């Protein structure tokens, strides 16, 4: 039932918001060393990157970004958005991406979780978005479809996106974390679940994997908050991108999985400070969610690029006048589609 995904079909893309990646890379070494890595340095980062030896990788910095993308675009590849540049220039079929403040987690038995392998398994086995299986992912070992699950739906659909979770510092927003400053996630839920079709989900960008060939264009650096900063509490770009991915996947009949793998997310920053600085993002979701719930894509949109184009226009029409942030997001999305067509789809990596 599962696809045979080869190591050389995968890129691990890391957006470096911190200069010293030594402990990050060394902790992930057992899981990363088989693969080619793309490290994209946040253009705002002044210090030189420190990367340990022994990896097969390409590093892209501000000059590279400027050269490939030029100044013709509204897209700003700084902060957490720098990794999208990595998605753009990758030539592999699958991408696994995680924030540089995440380390391997341990499962309930105390074993180190190979997050990369789990993401690959998620992408290699079908998703089941049309009917909920109460024993969760039926393609996991030791599990199956339950009584009452229609047989015609048991082959599932291709899984295009895998969203993992976080132990320790979970991905809560700033108000929530500020209210419960000591709360840490210690619950390891041993399940992978397909998010049902038409169900929207806040897809965190902290620990993800996707089929670049099929949904690459839908992962986009578009919604940039006015006070966007270098902590996840100060961003919504991944949540916006994730909603696009889900809408596109639902339209194209592809699956989105959530759950395993877990990563261990280090304590970093201060939720209250972030909240003081940037709280608009939290309010924005009140408009963003109803918009994505209502967006309808035409039948003629048969590729991710087509879909993103349609969503961007819908954003412009329906949300553009509500807040300039949305108008900019729409422009960025259209730019992204253009960029993807010119840079993202060519057969060879831009040599920098």
């Amino acid at each position, binding site marked *: 039932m599962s696809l045979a995904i080869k190591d050389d079909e995968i890129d691990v893309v890391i957006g470096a918001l911190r200069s010293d990646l030594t402990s990050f890379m060394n902790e992930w070494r057992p899981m990363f060393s088989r693969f080619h890595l793309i490290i994209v340095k946040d253009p705002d980062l002044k210090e030189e990157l420190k990367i340990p030896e022994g990896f097969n990788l390409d590093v892209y910095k501000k000059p590279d970004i400027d050269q490939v993308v030029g100044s013709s675009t509204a897209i700003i590849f700084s902060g957490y958005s720098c990794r999208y540049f990595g998605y753009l220039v990758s030539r592999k079929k699958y991408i696994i991406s995680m924030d540089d403040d995440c380390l391997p987690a341990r499962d309930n038995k105390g074993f180190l979780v190979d997050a990369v392998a789990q993401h690959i398994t998620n992408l290699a086995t079908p998703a089941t978005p049309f009917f909920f299986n109460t024993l969760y992912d039926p393609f996991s070992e*030791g599990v199956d479809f339950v009584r009452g699950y229609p047989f015609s739906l048991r082959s599932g659909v291709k899984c295009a996106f895998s969203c993992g979770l976080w132990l320790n510092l979970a991905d809560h927003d700033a108000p*929530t974390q500020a209210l419960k400053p000591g709360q840490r996630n210690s619950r390891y*839920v041993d399940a992978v679940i397909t998010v*049902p079709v038409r169900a929207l*989900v806040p897809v965190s960008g902290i620990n993800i994997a996707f089929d670049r060939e099929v949904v690459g264009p839908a992962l986009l650096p578009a919604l940039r908050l006015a006070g966007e900063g270098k902590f996840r509490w100060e961003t919504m770009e991944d949540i916006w991108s994730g909603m696009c991915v889900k809408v596109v996947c639902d339209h194209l009949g592809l699956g989105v999985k959530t759950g395993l793998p877990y990563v261990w997310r280090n304590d970093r920053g201060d939720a209250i400070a972030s909240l003081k600085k940037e709280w608009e993002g939290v309010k924005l979701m009140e408009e963003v969610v109803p918009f994505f719930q209502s967006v309808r894509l035409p039948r003629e949109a048969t590729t991710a690029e087509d879909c993103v184009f349609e969503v961007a226009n819908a954003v412009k029409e329906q949300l553009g006048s509500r807040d300039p942030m949305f108008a900019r997001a729409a422009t960025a999305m259209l730019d992204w589609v253009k960029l993807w067509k010119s840079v993202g789809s060519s057969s060879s990596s831009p040599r920098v």
Partner: protein
Amino acid sequence: MVEPATATQAAAPAVPQLKDELDIVIPTIRNLDFLEMWRPFFKPYHLIIVQDGDPSKTIKVPDGFDYELYNRNDINRILGPKASCISFKDSACRCFGYLVSKKKYIFTIDDDCFVAKDPSGKAINALEQHIKNLLSPSTPFFFNTLYDPFREGADFVRGYPFSLREGVPTAVSHGLWLNIPDYDAPTQLVKPLERNTRFVDAVLTIPKGTLFPMCGMNLAFDRELIGPAMYFGLMGDGQPIGRYDDMWAGWCTKVICDHLGLGVKTGLPYIFHSKASNPFVNLRKEYKGIFWQEEIIPFFQQAVLPKDCTTVQKCYIELAKQVKDKLSKVDPYFDKLAEAMVTWIEAWDELNPTGASVPNGKTA
């Protein structure tokens, strides 16, 4: 290797929640020995035993339990001609227990379900977890990636709109099973040795618009919010199908919950399912259902209830109409079933006169 907890391991809770507001409904045809194992957890509660099969047989209820017991003679006597909607020789008869209950909440469990252990070895009080599930809101409009945000140690994730964080009332709590999983006959035949050993420590709301296979083995619901939708259909003796009772109730219930803005949770608690039913017997029962469900599922997925259906009963009668219109062509059985659905509502309203015309299944 999973094992059930032993009777001595189960420790009674300090305060049995909702003890005067919840009935435990148990269908049985053999015996109730399994209650011994559940004693510390169930003893404070009132039991409704629905005895299937031969009414002349006496089913012994273990000492010390507060219960009422109904056999087929009682069902016929209480419902008269309407008794035709209650199945015979099938655990679907359990819904008679929902009908006669006077409580707000129902917990139903099969007589081959024992107390399970969590990964730390502690006996799981399934009833307590169901109550927690029912007493906290559901979140059907937006999926929370950290599962039930109302559980201790969890919360809503970044990006979850604040206007949706209050949630909606929970109408159904669907529990799971360790050891013998709830597979259909073909799967049982292919994998006779597969056992569910994975303890997934999550409760989650099934999103609005998504259907699921509801198993009646370990189920709790708010009778006041959704009771009339929990009709377990025509199964068993004289019927062309079996083992689709809970499935049918689940699809009707989910469509109605989605329409009325109520939530359905699934996940914890686990029970230990001890008996694997005979797969060949099951295949005979399910055979037609396996083909029919291919038409039934699209029917429920596309079912739309009009705005003026503001009570569960109105929704259910409307569904019965649609079943008759759209599924009769699949098999005349659905004609009978649609009529039985109406009979059920008539019986429900007769036995539960208050709250019949209250909008959104709320209490009067």
